[in-house]
């Protein structure tokens, strides 16, 4: 058995070491696979803030993932065609610059989370699950039926967006960029968890009425967590879109929400590095089982069922032998 802190260090180190070695030996595919892990882990870290710390079972995080993806798609498609998004009443041009795209994705994701959260948080429990699911689907159907940005066919971006001083077309450089972002967000989440806000949020999950009696607003705490969570997932969406240079309504589909949730659960709910290890496992399984059988999702389903029924606390829970991720 090892302590969770050491396990986290190990995961972070491995996640960096494996692609760097792969790049050294010219295994570019592995680098891309690792970038996928990092980006999806980031989406999971976003969800984990709402799900693990806040106890908000959102089955609609694909909405934010997709919003981030489309923020990138819309800005970059205008950027690559030199065709402004708006000319009236003031000029808004597209862009191919990653920092700008990320900022837009984070703001758009945060605002969507604010709107969805403000409505959904009026309810709780199973209503909340279904409502977030339904709002996610609303974005999905909107993306399908709105033809300006590709509709059902999605939108291709020909060249990956740029970051000042880096050549993002190099897989290892793009990986490094995503990895740094992931670690930065993980540090942010660790700080948040230890801050007064994080502690209050933790208390809300355990007993909202008690938090209310000491004069804090559970709704406001939950909404804040939901907005930060949505913004992080949107950032992951923008990175994911840039990785595949393609956005499509699939990013909004509820299977995406389900998969992001699987990352969190596989790793362990409420654990800082849970989504990271969950995303690693998921991508590795997809890769290996996908090679063994065309019907790999069947085995994924069986495995997931096994984890839910018999291995509560996820992989980190099993490795560190602690029941629950949250204190």
């Amino acid at each position: 058995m090892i302590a969770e802190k050491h396990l986290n260090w190990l995961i972070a180190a491995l996640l960096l070491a494996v692609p760097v070695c792969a790049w050294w030996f010219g295994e570019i595919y592995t680098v891309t696979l690792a970038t996928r892990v990092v980006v999806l882990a980031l989406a999971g870290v976003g969800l984990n803030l709402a799900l693990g710390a806040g106890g908000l079972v959102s089955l609609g995080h694909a909405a934010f993932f997709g919003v981030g993806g489309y923020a990138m798609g819309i800005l970059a498609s205008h950027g690559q065609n030199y065709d402004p998004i708006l000319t009236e009443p003031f000029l808004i041009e597209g862009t191919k610059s990653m920092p700008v795209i990320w900022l837009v994705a984070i703001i758009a994701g945060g605002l969507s989370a604010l709107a969805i959260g403000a409505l959904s948080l009026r309810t709780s429990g199973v209503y909340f699950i279904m409502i977030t699911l339904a709002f996610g689907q609303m974005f999905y159907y909107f993306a399908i039926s709105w033809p300006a940005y590709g509709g059902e066919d999605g939108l291709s971006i020909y060249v990956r967006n740029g970051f000042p001083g880096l050549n993002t077309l190099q897989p290892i450089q793009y990986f490094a960029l995503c990895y740094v972002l992931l670690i930065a967000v993980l540090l942010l989440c660790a700080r948040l968890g230890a801050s007064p806000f994080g502690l209050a949020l933790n208390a809300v999950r355990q007993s909202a009425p008690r938090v209310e009696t000491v004069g804090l607003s559970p709704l406001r705490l939950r909404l804040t967590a939901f907005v930060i969570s949505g913004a992080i997932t949107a950032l992951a969406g923008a990175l994911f879109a840039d990785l595949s240079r393609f956005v499509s309504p699939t990013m909004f589909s509820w299977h995406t929400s389900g998969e992001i949730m699987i990352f969190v659960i596989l790793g362990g709910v409420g654990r800082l590095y849970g989504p990271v290890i969950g995303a690693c496992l998921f991508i590795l399984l997809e890769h290996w089982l996908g090679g063994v059988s065309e019907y790999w999702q069947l085995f994924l389903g069986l495995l997931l069922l096994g984890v839910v029924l018999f291995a509560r606390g996820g992989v980190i829970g099993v490795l560190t032998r602690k029941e629950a991720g949250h204190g």
Partner: protein
Amino acid sequence: MSMILLIEQALNGLQFGVMLFVMAAGLTLVFGVMGLINLAHGSLYMIGAFAAATVAGLTGSFLLALAASLAAAAAAGAIVEIAVIRRLYARDHLDQVLATFALILIFSEGTRWLFGSFPLFLDTPDWLSGPVELPGGILYPAYRLGIIGVGLAVALGLYLLISRTRLGIRIRAGESDREMIAALGVDISKLYTLVFALGAALAGLAGALVGAIQSVQVGMGEPVLILAFVVIVIGGIGSIKGALVASLLVGLTDTMGGFLLPIAFAQVMEPANAMLLGSALASMLIYILMAVVLIVRPSGLFGVRS
């Protein structure tokens, strides 16, 4: 815009709503009695459709196909309840969501493995294939009228079952206090299996009936599942009456919205844009409806605040 077209669309909306009800009734019943959120309800719908298509292909009889859909979905429901779902009642909703999501993966891929990725086709029976002339000279497909009839019959049947039979009394008792009825000597786990199988059979029936209008394929249950969620959220989780009202509301809003919104927008803007904006907005309409209902009544139209 002609009156006949409008009535036709209203009937389509009614047919859609009634099918949503058959789907949502099982979902809301399972939630009301067992407190379980079942994402795999759409898979049972799919199983019903595949069973019906297979039996119809073998025997050529539509009625046998319907019977097969009921039997297959009920059997699948009972097996899943005994093997997996039973272990989830005491768990939190997160575990239920994940386990039933895993079931969807298993069912979808298993079906793809057995039947392949190509859609199957289920023909409407000859005796229901033509149109029927309704008062006012409206020609409407007999099969769709039949679906409306079946859906309303299911609603009536469920009402009678729950309010008039011994099983219904037990179901209602299970909703309000499961320990108490177990203490009174009712075999609660058998009751749960029965309720789950009943909900599954209804989903399977819906799948078979809709499968004859659309195609029978893997993943067909998921869009319907999410609409059924919208329905039971609007109606109030656990309320069959709420499910009926909400499913008709959702069916009519969706169909009429898709039909009327582009026409309404065409009054104020050019047709191409009106079509675009109208259909995009129509696709979101039921979710907007849901949001409005939740703002006014957070626990749904007929829901009880838990």
